């Protein structure tokens, strides 16, 4: 699903100058790079790749008994030198892929390698794209790792890409009628228009029954061709996740301060529901 076709998106998010794509040695970087490049084209922004070297991996490799178990080779010793070589190789691959995407779309681009948690520093005009899950072991088992925490909290709007095929619905989770919620709603509507998807607004039961809220939503989306459906959200986070899963969700849009605020929880929702997550500042 191409989520990045909305021209008006810039007006909603405002002043995007750089798409920062977070890369590492264990994530599926192709979808993230492709999405970042498309967004950069839409917003006429530069493309900046940040390859994060996993600090935990480097520490592990320094231990005398460190071993790595893989499907291809079984158990083998892991030394600091090997880890460094592998990280360099993956970084080079990521750099080439980013450069190729930039060339294809005629974008300005840059690339840097950083080290450790919260190492990616962002500016006000940055929009961050990251992959939500690691490459799987076999076809199914994915394990969360440090790099997704490489982006410092509150750095900017963020799109967490899910590596698996997405659904066809944009779901917006709202808890109030604040201006930030309005921006999320509009952004979600624009993504839905661009992808020819339907839009579902999920909110607290009380709000869902409120006619003024319904009017407020209609007013905010008057300029868009999508017709949202308002549903009440289950209070329990697990129930909310199941509910979203049942909606065939492709993109989940949240305000930065919306619940769940914990990045790990959001990531869990992304992997659990199989959808991308847009976090709006």
């Amino acid at each position: 699903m191409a989520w990045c076709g909305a021209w008006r998106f810039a007006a909603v998010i405002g002043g995007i100058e750089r798409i920062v794509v977070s890369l590492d040695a264990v994530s599926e970087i192709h979808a993230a790079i492709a999405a970042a490049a498309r967004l950069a084209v839409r917003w006429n922004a530069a493309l900046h790749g940040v390859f994060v070297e996993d600090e935990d991996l480097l520490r592990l490799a320094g231990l005398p008994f460190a071993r790595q178990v893989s499907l291809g080779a079984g158990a083998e010793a892991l030394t600091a030198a090997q880890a460094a070589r592998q990280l360099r190789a993956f970084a080079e691959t990521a750099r080439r892929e980013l450069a190729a995407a930039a060339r294809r779309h005629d974008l300005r681009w840059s690339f840097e390698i950083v080290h450790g948690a919260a190492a990616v520093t962002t500016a006000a005009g940055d929009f961050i794209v990251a992959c939500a899950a690691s490459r799987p072991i076999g076809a199914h088992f994915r394990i969360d790792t440090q790099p997704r925490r490489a982006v410092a909290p509150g750095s900017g709007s963020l799109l967490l890409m899910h590596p698996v095929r997405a659904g066809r619905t944009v779901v917006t989770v709202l808890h109030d009628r604040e201006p930030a919620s309005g921006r999320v709603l509009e952004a979600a509507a624009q993504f839905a228009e661009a992808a020819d998807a339907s839009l579902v607004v999920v909110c607290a039961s009380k709000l869902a029954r409120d006619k003024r809220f319904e009017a407020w939503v209609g007013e905010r989306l008057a300029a868009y061709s999508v017709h949202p459906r308002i549903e009440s959200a289950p209070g329990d986070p697990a129930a909310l996740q199941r509910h979203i899963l049942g909606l065939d969700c492709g993109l989940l849009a949240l305000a930065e301060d919306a619940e769940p605020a914990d990045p790990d929880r959001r990531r869990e929702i992304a992997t659990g529901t199989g959808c991308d997550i847009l976090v709006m500042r």
Partner: protein
Amino acid sequence: MAQQRRTGDGPPPGEDPTFDLAVPLPADLLYRRCDPDHLPFDLCTELVDAPGLIGQERATEAVRFAVRMRRKGYNIYALGDRGAGRQQLIEDLLRHQAETEPIPPDWCYVNNFVDPQQPRCLSLPAGRGAAFDAAMKRLVEELRATLPAAFERDDYRARQQVIEQQFKERSEQAFGALQQHAEGRGIALLRTPMGLALAPKRDGRVVSPEDFEALPADQRERTQREIEGIQGELEAMMRQVPLWEREHRGALRALNRDTAAFAIGHLLEDVRNGYRELPAVIDYLEAVERDIKENIDDFLAPPAAPPGAEGPGPAAPPGDDARFRRYRVNLIVDNGAQKGAPVIYEDNPTHQTLAGRIDNLARFGALVTDFNLIAPGALHRANGGYLLLDAQKLLAGNFGWASLKRALSAGEIRTESLEQLLSMPSTVTLKPEPIRLDLKVVLLGPASLYYLLSGSDDEFPELFKIAADFEDRVARTPEMTLLYARLVAAIVRRQQLRCFDRAAVARVIEQAARLAGDQQRLSTSLRAITDLLQEADQLAADAGKEEVGAAEVEAAIAAQFRRGDRLYRRLQEEIGRKTIRLETRGERVGQVNGLSVISLGTLSFGNPARITAQIRLGRGEVVDIEREVALGGPLHSKGVLILAGFLGGRFGDTRPLSLNASLVFEQSYGGIDGDSASAAELFALLSALADAPIKQSFAVTGSVDQHGQIQAIGGVNEKIEGFFDACRLSGLADGQGVIIPASNVKHLMLRRDVVAAAAEGRFAIRPIDTVDQGMELLTGIPAGAAGAGGAYPVGSLNFRIAARLDAFAARTAELWRGAAPGGSLR
């Protein structure tokens, strides 16, 4: 002069004409007219068409027999010249027969799902091949709609999610339990670039090497042992992952198969129901079903780009999706519109046009092929019926003959490349299943080729047991003349020409006799007659006439000759200008006017030339100068050697032939063959020996045997006309004419102007039977018959020749006597 007198006023039909050797032939023997008054119609449209070709009963019977004979090898070779109407006759016969025979089946090639390199052939009742093709196309289209819908349905997705969840949970539970177990011991499970690893953890982070070293030794050892223990479990679990994945794929495949089976079952059943009585088709449809189930993804993916778009080669049809080509039906023979058995004529019989070919498509810079690119040949199209081929084209074509023989011998059609046929190394290509062959082949070719093949190709007599020998001429009886008129009427009708009146038809029949070169025969060359009719029709059109008369036919004949007579006119012109020396008046010793025929394309004309002889002392040899310089062919040389035989037989029993003679066609610069000048050469030689001058007003044609008998030759009409035209250049004079073999009189169909000159006594045609008759005519001296002692009457030609030979012998003996012992006389 030895007279052989024949009597009679004119030849009854079919019999030799009678005539008097002592006088020039009367005009009525120089041209046998077809009297229009004897034709029982005014316009040819009144006539019923002639039934096929005329006078070809033997060939027709042979063809009919071969058609009835349904055994191997009873194919037909139709011997005859081009333009005789053989092909039309045979096609008519075969079509008539074919109408009563069953329509052969349709043939198609389909994919072999076990080995795509060897496509399968399917045979379906006539007309059902196209329906099968359409049914398969419809099936694929419906599958492309039905299958994605089946896989989009909620129940499928729910089942798929159950499977996905089941396997996801299995791995998550296993790894999750391990992870939980590890974390309970302060050990983190990490994702590394290549796999997984275990590391001691403190405060949510992996312990650094420095901090680990700072730990007490027993704690380090414990941690390390714990990590090793968990790592063993991790390794065991990692070994399970491929098994889980395999199980997962198998479960998904089974789900897809079940879903597909349910979705396609009724669609395939519909197709099957139409072909229950055809086990091979049912077998194929089962293979299709298996393949669809194994390749469901092809139907679920979005349409692919058409193949072959990036390079030269046959363009793929619009909307053609390479993924579904294997389900298509390549209908190579569609007999849906056929009435009876097919009768096919292949104009360009090569290996590929007979046995079919395998085309290629350019795809991504490489040539690829599949069963859809198998193209049929004439053998496919004619299978179950009749195939007509031109034998000369077949043998000249690219391995067409080898391909045909192979197919007929094996009783099957193998479509393969030339490289495969010749067992040459080739790229990997298809090897289509052979198709059973049951047809009758008719080769149309000249007789010479038939005899050549019979003698040099062992397989030919086995494969072509029936020879249909076509006549190139028929007897000119009254019945045949009327039949010929009906043939003219048939051609006029078929070619949609103007109506020919009775006189025009009569003139056409006369021309048919001229084409046959015989008063008593008519040419069966339909092409020549058809050309004449068409051209006469055009002249009538040019003149604004509604009907074609004898004048138009006459003009068309003259125009035909005129169009091709440039060289003939040039020769005549040079004779007139004395560049080519030809004497038509006066007398000469050892010189006679001979006649040859030059054939250029369809035109033949007579070419008069001086033949001279010189004699001298020698050992009885007659030298053919033409042969010495390799301009004379073997038949000409044979004729000259016969002269020596004649001389020896007549004069050599009482004296040695102590002479050498040389003979030559003067001013002849090209090759010459045939023995039709041997009589003229003998006359020149005898003239030289007798020192008796020959009248140059005569030209001579005829061959001679060793006993002095004059024998028939070919082209007598053209030769006479050639000399007539040469004489006319300086005005016809008394005594001019041509001496011809008496046995050629029945062949005379001379031009009108020659006949008119003869009728007026200005040009004579003199038939002879013997050398002596000819010499008497040419010299005016009696030849003289040998007496009881072998002596000839004094003063006769033979007496003078014998005396000359005696003188040569005496002179030779005299020279021998004067020669030194052991010497030689040359």
